[in-house]
């Protein structure tokens, strides 16, 4: 999908409509565009370059509902100068947007299959649009299972939405944390362990995986040990995207530009590069 905006290299100013604190260092921003970009069409898994004026640009996955393009939603973790500037924006302030960029989750192709959505930490943000799509077209898919792991209960993104999803009869949600104190009544253990609880028919299943590299590596191994083939697994990679259109080479990963060929890759295409330490 090509950019919605006039020139992919020129940021369009968007206004911060709402800021919601998700965790101690992660915020979700709802943005409204100018009239020309009021309906910001995107596909699940794509990202935008967000420009905090005076600080710089950062690639951030779109985490909103693709069926509601009037609001552009991003979940941002404060991990550096640019993301800190984005997280500190207040309602009514502006930031620049370029995008959407990148290859999306192939949700339309997965019709008729069981779908596993496996997220670790902030990885739920780029997967949320895919889940919205599946839920908006629920009758087209088989069993849908969400498996989500985080460090502690306080680090879980979208807790109210997770609760709502858990209450649905057409979706199974498995949540686990690495450690907990206090009144957490859910699972404690790594996300790979929870995969055993998911119900799916391996030959007719696709898995969409996003999270830290270590988590994805072990998740892929676990999925394959449970009968999924590499071509049934999709991963979203994170690299230092800069131009967003495959020109600058900042995000080169072996023969791929993550901004243009990814960030979503079918695992069999990137398998040889997935665990290489030099790239």
């Amino acid at each position, binding site marked *: 999908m090509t950019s919605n905006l006039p020139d992919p290299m020129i940021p369009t100013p968007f206004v911060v409509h709402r800021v919601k604190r998700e965790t101690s260092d992660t915020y979700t921003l709802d943005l409204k565009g100018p009239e020309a970009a009021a309906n910001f069409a995107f596909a699940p898994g794509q990202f935008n370059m967000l420009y905090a004026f005076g600080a710089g640009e950062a690639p951030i996955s779109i985490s909103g509902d693709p069926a509601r393009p009037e609001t552009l939603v991003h979940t941002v973790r404060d991990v550096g100068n640019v993301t800190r500037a984005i997280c500190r924006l207040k309602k009514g302030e502006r930031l620049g947007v370029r995008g959407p960029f990148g290859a999306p989750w192939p949700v339309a192709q997965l019709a008729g299959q069981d779908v596993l959505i496996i997220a670790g930490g902030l990885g739920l943000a780029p997967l949320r649009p895919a889940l919205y799509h599946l839920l908006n077209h629920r009758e087209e898919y088989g069993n849908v299972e969400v498996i989500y792991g985080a460090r502690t209960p306080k680090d879980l993104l979208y807790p109210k939405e997770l609760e709502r999803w858990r209450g649905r009869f057409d979706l199974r949600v498995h949540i686990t944390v690495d*450690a907990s104190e206090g009144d957490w009544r859910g*699972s404690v*253990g*790594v996300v*790979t*362990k929870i995969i055993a609880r998911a119900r799916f028919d391996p030959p007719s299943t696709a898995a969409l995986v996003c999270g830290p590299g270590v988590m994805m590596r*072990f998740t892929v191994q676990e999925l394959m040990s449970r009968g999924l083939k590499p071509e049934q697994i999709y991963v979203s990679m994170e690299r230092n995207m800069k131009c967003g259109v495959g020109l600058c080479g900042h995000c080169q990963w072996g023969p791929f530009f993550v901004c243009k060929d990814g960030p979503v890759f079918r695992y069999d295409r990137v398998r040889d590069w997935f665990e290489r330490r030099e790239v």
Partner: protein
Amino acid sequence: MDTMEPILAAHPFFKDLAPRYLKLVCECASREQFAPGQMLCRDEEEARKFYVIYHGQVAVEIYRARRGPVTIQTLGDGEALGWLWWQQPYHWHLDARALQLTRVISLDVQCLLTKCDQDHDFGYELMKRYAHHLAVQFRVTKLQLADMYG
């Protein structure tokens, strides 16, 4: 005792165990039930039982002074609790608390060890399963230590 055999046979740890060995396991087995909040074991207590969980959820905890218990793992249907009884002295190193109504088959450790000594083929079969479980646990622990979401 008869009703425990199908439960054990369906449990991942004992899956595909030869019927004659399953009978030996059943001779050391009894059913137990734990109410929510009830402790299955406490740190430093003598470890006399090995719990095969077939219903419910159990929190495995470490107690820290000032901060209280920290849950490091939860166990549920198809999992087991109590692996250190192969290692003398047989003492628990963790607390385990039922988070909900939990049903287990508890195996008498001394009884199992005696049967393993009497029948080394049986002992070897159990040891293979024990080693596999330890390898899985080891892998999970490494992932937890890696703090992947950090």
